[in-house]
């Protein structure tokens, strides 16, 4: 197991190198210019050329790639072309914010999704199942932007239970966290409910469930100890993959709730063609993705003792 983890960790290096290389190639293929974007309508050719030279943007791309790589290996992700802020410092500030949001979203959506999915399967074709699946369909089809605004209107403006936006005055504020987390996790919860239901329906028709029932076990025990446990393996895979996606794809939620996170940071950088920031974010985003895949694989072992890694 330990050797397997080490081998997987070492494999991260070529993956990241490949991702960086592709990012650099893509950035040079995509039209648009960070200096012209930065200067706006006062962009005169001599100023553009001077700033481009100062930022080494006029170097050939392979030289820029080599320079970026050597600097990154020393732990320096460079500075934003636009703001001059160190990418590492910015990520140190924004990643924890998005982590906080994504973890809460995953917890809320997994609890809700698995619960609703299991209940739906257990009460298949009853009104409970139909109601749950209708709600799931509704949430999957609801645009995040609209849902976030509705939550603000109802819980913040009308009931006054939660703050409207932001992160509060520092520290972990659950009140500030709950609406963005629910918004971010709502579609995933709905998806998970449908997914859990279908997996659960398959599991409860298996022989070992029939055997458990025929042994006279209480239905609750059959469901919780035998069925749900087997449902968790595919569910954990989906949750693990989606956690990384929630980290990278939280831009809409972060915009609605003025949450200073990773998603807004990277989208702003893409709009402004801030290559240093884009490369840093892609690198860190990929690292998170690969790392979570590894964690999911390790969790499998705990859930299913039959799985072993050499």
């Amino acid at each position, binding site marked *: 197991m330990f050797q397997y983890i080490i081998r997987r960790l070492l494999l991260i290096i070529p993956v990241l190198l490949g991702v960086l290389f592709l990012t650099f190639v893509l950035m040079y293929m995509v039209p*648009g210019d960070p200096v012209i974007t*930065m*200067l706006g*309508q006062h962009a005169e050719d001599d100023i553009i050329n001077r700033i481009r030279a*100062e930022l080494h943007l006029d170097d050939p791309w392979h030289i820029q790639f080599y320079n970026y790589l050597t600097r990154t290996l020393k732990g320096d992700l460079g500075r934003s072309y636009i703001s001059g802020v160190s990418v590492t410092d910015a990520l140190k500030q924004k990643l924890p914010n998005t982590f906080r949001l994504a973890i809460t979203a995953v917890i809320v959506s997994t609890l809700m999704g698995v619960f609703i999915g299991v209940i739906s399967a257990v009460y298949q074709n009853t009104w409970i199942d139909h109601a749950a699946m209708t709600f799931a369909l509704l949430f999957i089809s609801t645009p995040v932007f609209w849902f976030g605004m509705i939550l603000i209107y109802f819980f913040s*403006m009308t009931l006054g239970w939660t703050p409207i936006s*932001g992160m509060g005055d520092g520290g972990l504020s659950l009140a500030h966290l709950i609406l963005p987390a629910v918004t971010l996790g709502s579609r995933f919860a709905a998806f998970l409910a449908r997914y859990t239901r279908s997996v659960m329906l398959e599991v409860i028709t298996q022989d070992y469930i029939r055997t458990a029932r025929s042994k006279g076990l209480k239905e609750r025990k059959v469901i919780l100890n035998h069925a749900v446990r087997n449902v968790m393996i595919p569910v954990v895979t989906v949750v693990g993959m989606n956690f990384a996606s929630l980290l990278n794809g939280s831009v809409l939620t972060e915009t609605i709730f003025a949450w200073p996170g990773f998603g807004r940071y990277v989208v702003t950088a893409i*709009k402004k*063609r801030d290559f240093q920031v884009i490369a840093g974010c892609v690198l860190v985003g990929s690292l998170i993705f690969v790392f979570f895949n590894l964690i999911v694989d390790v969790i499998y072992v705990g859930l299913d003792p039959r799985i072993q890694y050499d």
Partner: protein
Amino acid sequence: MRRVKSLSLITILIAFFVMFSFMMIEKVVAEEPQYGGTLHLSNNTDWDTLDPAYCSGFDAGAMAVKFYDGLVRFDYHSNDVVPALAKSWDVEENNTLFTFYLREDVEFHDGTEFTAHDVKYSFDRLYNPEVASPGTWVYPMIKGTDASLNNETNGLKGVKVIDKYTVQFELDKPFGLFLTHLTLPYGLIVNEDIVEKYGDDFRQNPVGTGPFKFVSWEHDDRLVMEANENYWDGRPYVDEVMYRVIPQPLTDIAEFEAGNLDLTTVPTEERERWLGNDEWQQYIHTMAELSTYYLALNGDFEPLDDPKVKKAIDYAIDSQMVTESLFSHYVAANDAIPEGMPGGADVEFKADIKKAKELLAEAGYPDGFELELWVSDGSTSVRVGGVLQALLGRIGIKVDLIKNDWSVFYSTVKNGNAPSYYLSWWADYADPYNFLNALYTSDRIAFNNETINTMLGKMAATTDQTERIRLSQEIIKMTDQIGDPYVFLYHTSASSIKQPWIKGEIYHQMYNADKLVTWWIDQDIKAQEMK
């Protein structure tokens, strides 16, 4: 008995008089600015920088003036240029020699004394090639800027320290708007030791002479500043200002509605709800902005080089109809100069399909032609592009609408590769020269008219406002006659809404005029309203 009654009446009258006087006094006292409190404001985007040398955007410039001062600034209630760090100045030798006499009681936030050396350093720094400032377009008229940028000299020859509190600027040629250019954020004064102390992080650690001291900045979240108790122009009324970054306008107005923001802009989607509300109307201020939105026609692409084709397009686009149908609260444009700014020529609005078709036929295109129209991917741009496409379709011009994100869009436009495009110009300062020079000397549209260039040169040189306005009107009339490469569409306006407890706020057309020193919070009203 009668006497007693009279005495009682007099006593009652006196009591009323005294009560009334107290009420009046209380009212007057209540309107006296109060010190203290925190001002809560917002911005829809994070600030790129707080270093004056890199303030290329309006947001950064508007924020930088809270921490820094220039030699001059805009008056808080007009577009006049008034003294700031310079208490007075002499202008000699036909607008080429400016001597500034500096205030002697000014300190930077860290206690460093402000002197003429700081002024020289700030301008030398702007033209230091290693700094790579985007602001070198602002003061090219100062002697020695090219030499400095080419590393031929160390510092600007045209900026001289005469003594500790006197500094002199020598220009290559007369420039009547030099003082106005000094109001721009690139002209804010920094201190060499402080800049070197912070190095690369100076962009996010502003230490100037301005009315507010920097406290903290959580990027994309909030920026906090506190009153500079020793501000040379008197400390601001509020103790602290907290700016929040709220990118979504609907979230922003919700925060305002909940009383968490003191002033904000009414989003377009919410205009009817707020402007139609009797209770709030008195707290809403609508102001014409110094902007001009237009369709540009690039003469490098056939048949847009033909003046008749340009005129035909002008006649085909009814800017009043476009404005009314898309933005009823904006003002339709007939020339480049925004409403409320002198220099406009009242050129007639053109809307005549028949004449447009005739002109197109005369130009040899009776069946129209195909035209690429570039727009950015913002929703407003796409909507306007669609309307222009429909209007030009009426005279047979088949418009191919090309949408791209801002970076691709503007790079294409900047490189002269867009045959036609929809764009705007926002004032750097309130003078027609700023608009006309930007529009008619641009290499984006292949327009080069010697007479107009000469007139623009005269506009730049003169300090005579009347003459500048006359020249502006002449240029506008001339471009209209020879086939304007621009079809002007509309000028924008914005509505701000404030909480009842906010007093002394400024609504200025220039983004960099307000230093927040006049704002104060009526704590009594706030306490009452928040209940």
